[in-house]
């Protein structure tokens, strides 16, 4: 993000209204390689391709905030790789990681990985370090330390069903697992901040919190997020595009000040649930509208979204979730025009 975009983001998160209406998208490997015209594996394995794709996005859409911006990642294998999970990387499909914990009893032997050396993390960091001069030449800076959230990582390591069941059957083991992961995440986010002093934001992605009831969320979700988001950065950004009615009221207590939700909840309802204390990034349907072939539907959904908000302060116009595969430049332009006009 440029300095100007960062200023705008801070203003929006501070609850201010900005003109023209701010537009932002979370972009990463589900969208960028295909949009740039390269195979997913080339995007992951060739740092120049990764950088050029990201530079093209910021140059083609200078009036859009791309979050976190120049996200160095390896899809769903990123954090699990540090724990030793086997990543599967098909040439042009989305990678994923195999589990490493087959029963809750394995949890005690899990070690906290070293983010400086373990799995794919050194590759991620080094790619960003090498790219930094060109990113800065283009007028941008590395602004966010990024990681998947603790429940999300736990469900990769164990499997979602097994982790959710462990929470109910062996709550102490589930807590131990979350403690190990949270401790790793603190180190990992800390290392990113140390490496890039321009970082002034934390971005975490965790859809698994969306599947918990309030009691489980209070016990297993809230404490880790509170710990991870209690730092001195100015933007504390959370993504959860699974259901969020249970966790949304806790966002202020989690110290989150910017939230990207799923498309199945209105911004008005979320403003209410968060007592207007959290800026929101959303929320037209990503797959079924933004990535669709009907541009009139995109324009309609965007216009409807603007109209639905008597007060547009604290809102960044986007889709509900990350940018999905297949969104063309034309579709993005239709969205931008519809929001701005």
């Amino acid at each position, binding site marked *: 993000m440029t300095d100007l975009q960062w200023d705008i983001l801070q203003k929006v998160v501070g609850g201010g209204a900005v003109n023209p209406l701010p537009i932002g998208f979370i972009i990463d490997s589900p969208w960028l390689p295909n949009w740039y015209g390269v195979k997913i594996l080339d995007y992951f394995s060739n740092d120049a391709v990764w950088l050029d794709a990201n530079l093209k996005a910021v140059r083609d859409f200078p009036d859009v905030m791309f979050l976190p911006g120049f996200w160095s990642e390896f899809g769903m294998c990123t954090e699990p790789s540090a724990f030793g999970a086997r990543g599967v990387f098909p040439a042009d499909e989305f990678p994923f990681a195999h589990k490493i914990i087959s029963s809750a009893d394995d949890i005690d032997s899990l070690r906290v990985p070293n983010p400086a050396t373990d799995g794919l993390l050194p590759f991620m960091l080094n790619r960003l370090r090498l790219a930094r001069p060109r990113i800065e030449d283009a007028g941008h800076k590395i602004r966010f330390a990024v990681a998947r959230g603790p429940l999300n990582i736990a469900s990769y390591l164990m499997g979602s069903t097994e982790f959710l069941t462990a929470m*109910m059957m062996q709550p102490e083991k589930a807590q131990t697992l979350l403690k190990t992961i949270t401790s790793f995440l603190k180190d990992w986010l800390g290392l990113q901040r140390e490496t890039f002093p321009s970082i002034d934001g934390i971005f975490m992605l965790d859809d698994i919190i969306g599947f918990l009831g309030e009691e489980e969320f209070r016990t297993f979700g809230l404490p880790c997020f509170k710990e991870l988001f209690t730092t001195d950065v100015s933007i504390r950004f959370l993504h959860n595009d699974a259901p969020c009615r249970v966790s949304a009221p806790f966002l202020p207590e989690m110290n989150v000040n910017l939230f990207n939700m799923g498309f199945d909840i209105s911004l008005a309802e979320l403003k209410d649930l968060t007592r207007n204390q959290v800026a929101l990034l959303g929320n037209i349907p990503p797959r079924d509208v933004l990535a669709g072939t009907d541009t009139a539907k995109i324009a309609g959904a965007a216009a409807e979204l603007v109209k639905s908000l008597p007060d547009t302060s604290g809102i960044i116009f986007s889709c509900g979730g990350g940018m999905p595969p297949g969104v063309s430049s034309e579709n993005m332009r239709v969205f931008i025009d519809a929001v701005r006009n």
Partner: protein
Amino acid sequence: MNELVEKIGHCVERGKINKASPFPGNMKGQDGADELTRQALEAGMDAEAILQSCIAGMVRIGEKFGRNEVFVPEMLMAAKAMKAVTEHLKPFFQSGSVQAKGTLIIGTVAGDLHDIGKNLVSMFIEGNGWNVVDLGVDVKPEKFTDAIRKNPRCVVGLSALLTTTIASMSKTVREIKALFPEIKIIVGGAPLTMEIATGMGASGYARDPQGAVTWLTDIKETA
């Protein structure tokens, strides 16, 4: 209904698996589905009545889930409690005195790791009295065809959550149909529609677990 049999259904609804399980908190230390089923069978109670009570318990928890009164973890626990009961009922299934409605082989197709929706579907169908073989995520077509070979009278359920893995789902349908033209396949997952499902040659499509149960009941009745 007999009090003990009714209690078993209640354990399923609440996800009380056995005495040792700490969940739910307010049933801690009490006998669960496991112990109560053993006691009921020892007392000579009807296995079919026990199964029906469990199915009713699953229906009740399913309705609560639909109303957002309980969440995925509670559903998982109910399914586990149901499993504890069906373990005891196995000999009755084998002898034919209790009949499963059929066997469903289910999995998320190759390249896709989303399984929360698929697991809910599989729990509801199991809770409705079907025998379910869950092959997990990233399931290659050969794994489905191998499983069909072992369960020749089964129905197959495929799940996909990515637009990109719809192609993988089509391929799976084609490979299954090539070897087992008679096998019925139901597909589901958020990016699918009836039109896409029909286009790939699937026998059925449902948006949600209830729809899948209705479809299964229909094909069983017309079979």
